[in-house]
């Protein structure tokens, strides 16, 4: 049955958690929302700009920019988004 909301998980990893104060949260968006809507939500709630060269944004294990629709990619129920600082090898 189609619902009018999708629930996704947003995880704030490494130094980004300093800015959000939470490690992860389950967030609902109206169905047919996109990564653009997530970017707006994160900006309004935490003042974090996504996409941003100093913040890596991943949807289900792949960079937002790797999806054909880029920021217009529609959210699906159960999606996981991870936000973290740029990584460069250890």
């Amino acid at each position, binding site marked *: 049955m189609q619902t009018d909301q999708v629930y996704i998980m947003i*995880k704030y*990893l*490494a*130094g980004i*958690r*300093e800015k959000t104060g939470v490690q992860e949260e389950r967030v609902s968006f109206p169905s047919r929302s996109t990564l653009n809507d997530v970017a707006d939500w994160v900006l309004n709630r935490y003042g974090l700009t996504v996409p941003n060269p*100093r913040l*890596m944004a*991943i949807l289900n*294990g*792949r*960079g937002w*920019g*790797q999806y054909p629709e880029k920021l217009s990619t529609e959210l699906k129920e159960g999606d996981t988004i*991870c936000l*973290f*600082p*740029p*990584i*460069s*090898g*250890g």
Partner: protein
Amino acid sequence: MLKGGYMGKVLRVNLTKKDYSVEDLKESEVLKLMGGRGLAAKRYYEEIGPAVKPFDQENKIFFFTGPLTGVRLPSTTKFQLSTKSPETGMYLCSNCGGDFGPHLKMSGFDGLIIEGQASAWTSLLIRDNKVSFGDAGSWQGLTTDKTQEELKKVIGEKRVGVMSIGPAAEKLVRISCINVDSRAFGRGGAGAVMASKKLKGIVVKGTGKIPVADQAKIDEIRKAAITNLKETRANHTKFGTPQYIEVINELGCMPTRNFQTTYFEGTPKVDAHTMYDQYLEKNYACYMCPVACGKINVVKEGPFAGARARTEFESIGLLGPDCGIDDFGAIVYANQLCDEYGIDTMSTGNAVALTMELYEKGLVSKEDTGGIEARFGNPQALIGIIRLIAERHGIGNLLAEGMAGVLKKKPEWSPYILSVKGLPFAAYDPRGFYGNALTYGTSSRGACHNVGGWTIRDELISGKYDRFATEGKGKLVKTIQDNRAYVDSLGICTVVRSSMNFGDNPTGEVMTAVTGHDFTPRLLEIGERIYTLERLILNREGIRRKNDRLPKRTVEEAVPSGPIKGRTLSSEMYEGMLDEYYRSRGWDPDGVPTEESIEKFGLKELM
């Protein structure tokens, strides 16, 4: 010689004769190979034949700085070594920070070559252009840090560059490091080469000035770079490389229980937040580094109270999750033991994890482990097996031979050994990033994430790549490897490179200000030349396509659980990437550079 960046001299020390000489550095070789890794590879090519064994007195250690080492710019700390590796039996290049490289240069030398074998334990003192030898007989058995303290007492200075080996190297444990200040030439067992020469440590004090072409411009670049780093590297300053623990785990490529799976449920207990809140004592900075990413951690309570070590991502990943350990205190203590004995945390973590898997599968018994219950997640087993390796007791005597040695004696253990060319994996499971698999396969020193080319960022965010696909990975890995080879030859840390525009499209101002010569248009070409030279060395030592392949677990077993459950990389896919990689490099299908590519990089005339 160029206007700046070079001292123009190389110090050659012969331990057999207790003698030394000074050679000129040629401008022609500098223009082709720049410094650091390039020059160390060239000297190795010229002086270490394929028949030379790691512990033969004919083996040598070549230390080379780069044109930026010691210059008053951020993190100009790096220098490089090459030698024949006791761990892999082939060419080894290794890169290290600390203060030694800058002091070597300020003492008047771009490079230091150690050759011969002393008849008794010896130390080497370099004070500006004066060289002397000391008796290190009474230091036998001392840990790396205590040896460094003794060296500082002998020279009577605290602000020096100092390197030492520990008790493990003295027993020729093939995964021994050379500890340099608070950093190390960690991988490949160079510490055991130093021990075979009966050289316990080197201290250098340089007070000279490093010439530069345009000091005013350098001052301007430094200020801008520091401002940039304070902003862009704030997370690195606060959390250091341990911040990657949480990220790599979430991406599903954290080595867990000897790479059997790739997601560690205990990560919150060993991640950067736990470290920062409960263990961090202070930061450590290499020479001239405003980032200060080193993290000195102290255990305040529990069974490992009092332990103190500088823990990095790789050490945590391989001594922690890969051994099933979720006790950060145990990881700090394990790290401290490795540092004191002078063994590589990465190869050690792999060796302990292997032992634990073999024990759980019934292939190793308590008789082998000296009574240790070697199960994953047992901190006492982690500590106990480290001691067995460093002291060459029980199964530790076999593990001390490195994975190449283990495979020779126990070929039936090959399904559980995660290494390429004898060098164990770094703390990324390549089934999570297929480019990383090629990195491990084609790195000039075995399964290394740095020399081999760290692809994860590109595979994760570039629109050109899919982390679980093979297309384009050959070219990607080649480009990153060439990039890294030139950075390893500059003398700066990779953490700060972007603040001075040393990326894929480097700009010329830093090199021109330091040397008076604009290397920049050819930096990637220099990197490619170095990589090709290293491959020629490896070819001469018998390395071909068959040696560039990955262990069975990586290409035959699907990841059983976690975010990338079900992922595997088949042999066919891997061979396809290898083909693309060789073509990108101008190598033949067996991994040998063609005459054309040797000609292209002017390598014939160099040799």
